């Protein structure tokens, strides 16, 4: 059964009882929320995702619950909880859905040590994946959102799950998290894309999520062999320039952008080395998404080395 097979009120009922088991391959999340509009946003963003049967094992139990007290009638707050443990900082209830998204990212980064979890966007074309690791502010999510609206398959806009045993990358094909000016940039670039209502004043500024394509979601269980590591850098009106980036520097950046590099120890070192051996590494400066699409098109058309 898919999320889209459920009515919004069924979905709301499942969320209230904490019985929404969402398959975000390779994981299952059990989601609970009494925030009214979360059901609408999940329906909007996760329509193509599978709802699991109740007897399944859930990797993460996440909850966003409204805070009690008089304040809930004025400017309600909500709090994230993981496996029943409440976080200590409540946020405005309007941020409930982004909170679930960030919370799930945290769950994966802090627990999925069967993978090297890299802070990177991952997209695929022709059976090859481009990994876009980057510190926040580099335009990685914008670039990722642009490309997945031009035929690239989305694996993730935030977390690359590198399987240490197979050398393949898994993604969850979850919604793309866009911030501030990026939201309007992508709206203009891809008018058909579906967004949540932007939420202002989060710690990350104004945030909106973009629905992943059905094709990406259907193939979420297919891992991909990485072929390129590309470090994006957005500069207003800059020409699109792709240049080779040294392996040693790329290594350091990937290690630094991995959430659990330290936990893996030597395994982590070898994993990053293996990943780099499979990939060409580049930096990519761009000022317009159309240029970026052309450059990536050319890359994908090159024969595999």
């Amino acid at each position: 059964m898919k999320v889209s097979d459920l009515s919004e009120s069924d979905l709301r009922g499942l969320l209230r009882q904490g019985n929404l088991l969402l398959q975000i391959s390779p994981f299952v999340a059990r989601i609970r929320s009494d925030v009214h509009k979360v059901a609408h946003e999940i329906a909007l963003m996760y329509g193509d995702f599978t709802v699991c049967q109740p007897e399944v094992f859930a990797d993460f139990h996440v909850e966003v619950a409204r805070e009690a007290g008089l304040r809930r009638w004025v400017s309600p707050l909500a709090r994230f909880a993981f496996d029943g443990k409440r976080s200590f900082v409540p946020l405005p209830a309007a941020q409930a859905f982004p909170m679930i998204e960030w919370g799930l990212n945290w769950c994966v980064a802090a627990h999925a040590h069967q993978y090297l979890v890299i802070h990177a966007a991952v997209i695929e074309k022709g059976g090859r994946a481009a990994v876009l690791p980057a510190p926040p502010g580099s335009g990685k999510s914008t670039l990722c959102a642009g490309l997945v609206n031009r035929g690239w398959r989305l694996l993730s806009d935030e977390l690359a799950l590198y399987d240490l045993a197979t050398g393949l990358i898994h993604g969850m094909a979850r919604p793309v998290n866009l911030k501030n000016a990026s939201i309007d940039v992508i709206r203009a670039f891809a008018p058909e894309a579906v967004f949540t209502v932007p939420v202002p004043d989060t710690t990350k500024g104004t945030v909106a999520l973009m629905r992943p394509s059905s094709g990406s979601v259907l193939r979420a269980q297919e891992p991909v062999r990485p072929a390129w590591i590309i470090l994006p850098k957005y500069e207003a009106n800059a020409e699109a320039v792709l240049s080779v980036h040294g392996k040693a520097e790329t290594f350091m950046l990937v290690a630094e952008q991995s959430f659990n590099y330290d936990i893996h120890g030597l395994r982590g070192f070898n994993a990053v080395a293996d990943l780099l051996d499979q990939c060409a590494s580049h930096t990519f400066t761009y000022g317009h998404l159309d240029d970026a699409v052309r450059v990536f098109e050319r890359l994908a058309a090159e024969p595999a080395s």
Partner: protein
Amino acid sequence: MSRLQSLTVQVLLEPERAFGLSMPEWDLLVRQARRANLLAKLAYVLQDGGRIADVPTAPRLHLQAALRIAERQQLALRWEVECIRIALTEVPARLILLKGAAYAMAGLPAARGRMFADVDILVPRELIAKVESVLTIHGWRGEDMDAYDQHYYRHWMHEIPPMRHVRRGTSIDVHHTILPGTARIKVNTAALFEGVRSLPELAGVDVLQPVDMLLHSAAHLFHEGELDNGLRDLFDLAGLLRELGRDPGFWAALVPRSIALGLERPLFYALRYTSMMLDAAVPASVLAASVAAGAPSGPVLALMDACYVRALQPMHGSCDRFGTWTARMALYVRSHWLRMPLHLLAYHLIRKAIKPDKTLTEARAMAAPHGGGKPQA
């Protein structure tokens, strides 16, 4: 006395039970064990039995992830202890490790899979200022605190404010004894220092002698007010009793030593609840001697039983039953009552009520799940 056993305790005591679990039970077990900080211990128990491969894939990945974190922590701990040892060579004080760090460095199986956030060390009171300044030179900094909190630690507590290493982010708690100076129980600290043992493979690193190690663990748990790790600590006690108890001299020395240190009451509770809740094998004569030396009156004991049986459970909704909240609250209040005389307690609580505890709030905020996106330093 009803025996309320969480799924986590059932499986840790009888690992075979794991292999008859349904998927929803595995789901619950992982939840409970994670909340109790016992997931890595569970993983070691199943791995040591050679059967971790028989666990269904989805829960097995969580167990193996916990093993990786635990292995990494052991390595990090060794490095941290070495850094502390090097720093303290500048002070005429021995490096005496307490609690988790001591169990791990002494190679005690109780340390396997035990997760901890900081290293606890014990130094003579007269060297505290010197140790603090040397640690500062080597990169540890006291956490920001207002004057009242500084006073609270330095005048009333048994440790100085926790210090954090500026580059590694690791924490160290420097103690000069094992219970607050204001506590009702007066510990014979001089006797504690006399019993310190060197670790054979690690020059310059000492731990408490076995009986004292057990007594400190007991004193810690049964004075603790926030029992988030209570069940984990009870497993520590059971594990220490099993391992240290292989030496018959340990059992003979235990109760007399508890009397000498002034810790007969916490020892009584430790023996009572490890045997009652975790099937620890305590010789009948030792149990009887600890009852004679440290048992409270009948009504108090009945109350303590009711509280501890409820509170020493995984902090997970599935383990709550009638009275759990009240029991945890009662033990929290009791811990303050034990920690300081009434006039100080009243002053302290009023002060805390007026001004929220900033350090506590911050520590909790750090421990809280945060928005994903940025790797942790």
